[in-house]
């Protein structure tokens, strides 16, 4: 067989951190043959992104070091490349979809400009052609009304839209190798399907190879030829998808496969990898009671008093025009939404990316000012509460932002970030006490206490997401909006977090609005599900009813698009 396009040989990456040197990647080796897709799955924080960044030669100097290892691209060791050489391959031969599109886009340029730029560098085209190509790409990745959206700035787009901009940017020059780091974390299944098809198409046309990092085994199943499993900065298993899925060897892999929430069944709790192996990777015997399954229906109503009521809520964004940027029109991010939410219940919000989920969540917490309608929280209209009152309210209502990175202050250590809410609301007597509370929660979301002194940029995407979760839960709120809060987590950690949320709900009667595009997760956690489209809630019902017999076509479409989590061979349906 021909020599592989990309060849990573016992790569080691280390970082200098507040608490000494950490090894993020520990001699990792794998190959990517031309025209094939390697799926990389693994625990959050296991070194997937770092590996890919190493391939791009974009590791964060000066903190990062590569003490050992080689990376061959087309037979050349690109670690030895100088800037110019690296530049010549970046963008047009190897390109990358970064894990966190929100922060990865330049805030002051229009999105289409940023896509077009890539094209202009590597292809000799006029800027006009480039722009048109960009708009076309935006269309292909399914951004609504691309010619309009082309003029938007990143902060004016929804998470998923930004992510798709990133994707468009990466595929703009039909690269030989595409590194996709969690490219679909913010995409609802329909869009996800569309994107995956697009990638698959490109692969067919240009024999593009892909390094596809994800935690979503379903997706892996759909797209990957071979799979690499990473765990604690090591590669623990390499094999073709088939094998991985049907005869996993490493306990972690087995755990992963077992942990995914299935649409059909409704376990009380989700299993986590720790159920399959202990700390040092030794396999455990699974006691059947742990996988016991039961049906939510049997559960008697916890409570009946309404905590949150939203009436005809409208939130709009000005659309600017003219040289002096006068407001010519308004875009309704949330358009006349009404619903009720009982105490101790969870409302799952699903819907196409860009349909207004985040905006709705933010509006409820009054982080964006609603234009009309009213929000009634535990019997009190909070639509026009300000100042101190609002501040105190915030103690009870929390949000987990969709974009963890940009919601973390780059100049605060994690311990500061976590203890801050406590300081604000004078929870916990001493500094010590507060710190302990922080530590406890920090571990509950599966992070190591010794990392508390790091700064946000020193974490992996998933880790940051968990930090945000921890921050939101610090105050033991009554009501939490979780915006795509487990999107970047591998199923095991995901399960761990979901369980945590459930436990808290049990204990403290917490109430959640759970925004997610992952229907199986929603299905698992939500008592009721609301389906949003174009700023409206088009359907709302008990979870099971929705899944069993959806009334709206849009919902049907959603459900049908869920990846099966089986192997590519029978993915022909996609193509």
């Amino acid at each position: 067989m021909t020599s592989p396009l990309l060849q990573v040989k016992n790569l080691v990456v280390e970082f200098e951190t507040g608490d000494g040197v950490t090894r993020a990647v520990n001699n990792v080796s794998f190959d990517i043959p031309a025209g094939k897709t390697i799926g990389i799955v693994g625990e959050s924080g296991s070194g997937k992104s770092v590996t890919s960044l190493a391939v791009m030669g974009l590791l964060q100097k000066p903190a990062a070091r590569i003490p050992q290892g080689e990376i061959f691209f087309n037979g050349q060791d690109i670690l030895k490349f100088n800037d110019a050489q690296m530049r010549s391959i970046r963008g047009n031969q190897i390109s990358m979809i970064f894990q966190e599109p929100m922060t990865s886009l330049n805030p002051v340029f229009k999105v289409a400009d940023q896509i077009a730029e890539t094209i202009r560098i590597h292809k000799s085209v006029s800027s006009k052609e480039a722009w048109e190509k960009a708009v076309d790409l935006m269309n292909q990745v399914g951004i609504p009304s691309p010619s309009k959206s082309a003029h938007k700035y990143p902060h004016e787009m929804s998470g998923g839209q930004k992510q798709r901009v990133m994707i468009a940017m990466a595929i703009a020059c039909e690269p030989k190798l595409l590194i996709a780091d969690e490219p679909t974390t913010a995409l609802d299944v329909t869009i996800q399907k569309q994107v995956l098809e697009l990638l698959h198409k490109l692969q067919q046309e240009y024999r593009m190879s892909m390094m596809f990092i994800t935690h979503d085994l379903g997706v892996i199943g759909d797209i990957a030829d071979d799979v690499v499993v990473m765990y604690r900065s090591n590669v623990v298993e390499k094999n073709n998808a088939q094998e991985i899925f049907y005869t996993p060897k490493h306990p972690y892999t087995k755990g992963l496969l077992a942990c995914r929430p299935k649409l059909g069944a409704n376990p009380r709790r989700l299993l986590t990898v720790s159920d399959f192996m202990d700390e040092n990777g030794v396999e455990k015997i699974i006691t059947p009671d742990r996988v016991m399954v039961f049906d939510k229906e049997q559960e008697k109503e916890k409570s009946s008093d309404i905590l949150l009521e939203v009436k005809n809520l409208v939130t709009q964004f000005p659309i600017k025009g003219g040289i002096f940027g006068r407001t010519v029109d308004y875009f309704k991010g949330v358009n006349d939404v009404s619903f009720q939410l009982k105490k101790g219940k969870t409302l799952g919000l699903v819907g196409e990316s860009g349909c207004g989920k985040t905006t709705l969540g933010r509006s409820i917490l009054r982080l964006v000012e609603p234009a009309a309608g009213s929000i009634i929280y535990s019997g009190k209209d909070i639509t026009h509460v300000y100042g101190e009152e609002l501040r105190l309210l915030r103690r009870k209502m929390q949000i987990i932002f969709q974009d963890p990175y940009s919601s973390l202050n780059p100049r605060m250590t994690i311990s500061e970030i976590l203890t801050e809410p406590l300081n604000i609301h004078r929870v916990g007597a001493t500094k010590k006490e507060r710190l302990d509370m922080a530590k406890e929660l920090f571990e509950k979301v599966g992070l190591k206490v010794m990392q508390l002194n790091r700064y946000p940029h020193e974490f992996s995407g998933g880790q940051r997401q968990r930090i945000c979760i921890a921050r939101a839960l610090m105050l033991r709120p009554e009501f939490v909006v979780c915006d795509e809060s487990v999107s970047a987590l591998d199923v095991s950690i995901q399960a761990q977090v979901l369980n945590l949320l459930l436990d808290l709900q049990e204990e403290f009667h917490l109430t959640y609005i759970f925004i997610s595009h992952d229907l199986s997760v929603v299905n698992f956690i939500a008592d009721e599900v609301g389906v949003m489209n174009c700023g409206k809630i088009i359907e709302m019902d008990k979870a099971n009813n929705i899944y069993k017999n959806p009334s709206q076509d849009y919902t049907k479409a959603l459900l049908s698009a869920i990846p099966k989590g089986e192997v590519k061979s029978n993915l022909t349906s996609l193509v």
Partner: protein
Amino acid sequence: MLKYIVRRLLYLIPVLLGVSFVIFVLFNLVSGDPTAVLLGKNATARQMEELREQLGLNKPLFDQYLDVVKSAFTFDFGYSWATKQQISKMIIQGAYPSLCLSLPAFIVATVLSLIISLVVSFYRGKGIDLFVRILCIAGVSVSALAYILFFQYFFAFKLGWFEISGFEFGFPDFVPYVALPAIIFILLSLGPDVRFFRTIILDEIYQDYVRTARAKGLSETVILLKHVLRNALIPIITYVVIQLPSLILGALLLENFFSIPGLGGITLNALNSSDFPVIKAMAILSSVLYIVLSLVTDILYTFADPRVKLK
């Protein structure tokens, strides 16, 4: 936005009121009784009294203040007490040379220091970076006087590359006169500018979008010039625009040594002969400039960074 602009322009009113008040108070503090100075060494008590009457210094303070306000809003500054010249004419005649000197110099200085600071921030921490920084500070540590005396002696007198001093109106003519002071001007402002721009730029180059830009295969220079610079724009704009009013008000030392009949000298003379109308005019002029310019900055902000909203 238009609303905003209008509101900010309306703002001239309180500002002018404030300025004219402060100026008025200060003046009455500073130059006690101007008549003695205005009339020269042989002044007699009687004549001083007459002059005081004539200049309206015997009017009740409030009326005097009203006069100040009036001229502030009508932009009618009347005639200088000391030179008896029409002030608006003095200012126009003086602004021209001042601008001939400071405006080109300023632009060159800004662009130059932007380039330099981009380069050094690219090599941050390396030898050249340190070297340039030290150079900058050396540059600012040397007193302007030293530059002037030396340069004038060496380049104008010894080498005869430039005119020693003087000025001529009209485009190409003034060049040989302002060239040398302009160079000094640039040298003097290079130091602080580079230092400032450098920090601003450094604050940006570790953002994630820079990583993305690299991933696209952009060259470092493009990244710096386009992505980084654009994001660093807000403080740079502020910093640059702040200096503009002072350009028109002229660089006193330079103007004096190179006999450039600019506003710098006029202001100082006014102060030295307690020529209130002129001082007043200068202050009002610069406050108007200030308002307009800070309005411009704010508008530029919104262009520089779409996230900035003006309420």
